[in-house]
């Protein structure tokens, strides 16, 4: 697993208070990890802070799963 994926996972575990094993790439923040809409806002902020990236509102709305988050951040970092 990439360093980014590892860090994303850690942030999700910490913010949503879920077991690490549940944070699979396919896991949906809302459907599988018990987040509500405010949790996802906070999560995106935490990603922005941790990776020093800007995630605009329309992009944030498309981040529904752990993989979505990893992909987005990896793309930003590669750019």
């Amino acid at each position, binding site marked *: 697993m990439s360093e980014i994926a590892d860090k994303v996972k850690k942030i999700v575990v910490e*913010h*949503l*208070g879920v077991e690490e094993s549940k944070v699979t790439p396919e896991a949906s923040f809302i459907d599988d990890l018990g987040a509500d809409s*405010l949790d996802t*806002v*906070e999560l995106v*902020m935490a990603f922005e*802070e941790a990776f020093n990236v800007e995630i605009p509102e329309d992009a944030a709305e498309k981040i529904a799963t752990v993989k979505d988050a990893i992909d987005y951040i990896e793309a930003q970092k590669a750019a």
Partner: protein
Amino acid sequence: MLQSAGSDLGRRRVVVTGMGMVTPLGLGTEHVWKRLIAGESGIDRIHSFDPSELAAHVAGEVPEGPTAEGKLTVSDWIPVKDQKKMDRFIHLGMIAAAEAVEDSGWKPESEEDRCATGVMIGSGIGGLQTIYEASITVYEGRAKRLSPFFIPSALTNLVSGNVSIRYGFKGPNHSAVTACATGVHAIGDAARLIMFGDADVMVAGGAEATVCKLGIAGFCSARALSTSFNETPQKASRPWDRDRDGFVMGEGAGIVVLEEYEHAKARGARIYGEIVGYGMSGDAHHITAPAEGHEGAYRAMNSALRSAGVTPAEVGYVNAHGTSTMADDLELVAVERLFGEDAGKLAMSSTKSAIGHLLGAAGAVEAMFSLLAIRDNVVPPTLNLDNPSRESAIDRVAHHAQQRNVNVALSNSFGFGGTNASIVVRGV
């Protein structure tokens, strides 16, 4: 079942079937009551921040430690991931509510019962520390980093909101905000909702957590806090004593479960007592100082006794507002005026001497102490009352608890803005 307001209006009786409290004397109603009666104090030097640049260094903070020892471990009550969504006053309120609901044994399963169960938990100030921290974030140019939970963490009515969500109580969801009178207003208003038929059960009370730098600094600026006993914290709260020099802030929460009498009887609930009277008034005088002769307090007490249909002679105990400020003697004068010749038979104490002033939670905790005084026929002491600044026929229960036959008790709370509330409770 909810009865419609109509012919029953004004006749529905309201009793207390559950109690929960978090105070500087610890967690749990019986634990706190035992320590209070033993004359212990929960006042100490402030631990949660360094108070040395402020004039006041003492407060009543909820002791941290193992739950089994009656101390506070928030994560035993609220999952870590949810804690950051709530200011400390909500934590304390949720914990007191958990005890009260459990104590009452009321677990509504049907939709009908859930809709007949409401919540009315207030706070004098709300999430002050949360607002303070969020302000710093914005000030530092990081407004976009503000937590999405900032607003729901700070809102005063969010103890009510969170309690209703946790237990599925779908009745009236309300909150009182009247500074230091909040706790009494919440219980009194909630009782009236039951009397009026809006609910059969109400979880009611107050929560406060303003022992933070901004809170202490603010009351220091208003010259309201004790500053002469920084080296002897347990001596700082001394209602009616000639050396008193301001109140001592406390934090905590007090929550009761109120229930319509027949509803409680039908399910065999244990009944602590009845809310028989409630009175309110406004001073229309000054934002922080009481009116001459505390005439607003007099009217609130008088109105509470009238609504209870009891005479002063029947009242055995008054839990005074008694904050350890100059206003103590004004309240004393108002009580003397109300009780007249019966003053000599009365016991009146200020439990703020032991736990400090819990602001919006004070009235709720003190109403519970009044109910426990009736249950146990014991009145709690006024600590540090060494030399009363004013002599009185009223026994102010200096230093030690007393055995007393108490069947009716009155509890007072007065707040900034000239708001006064009194509640009368009776054994059932």
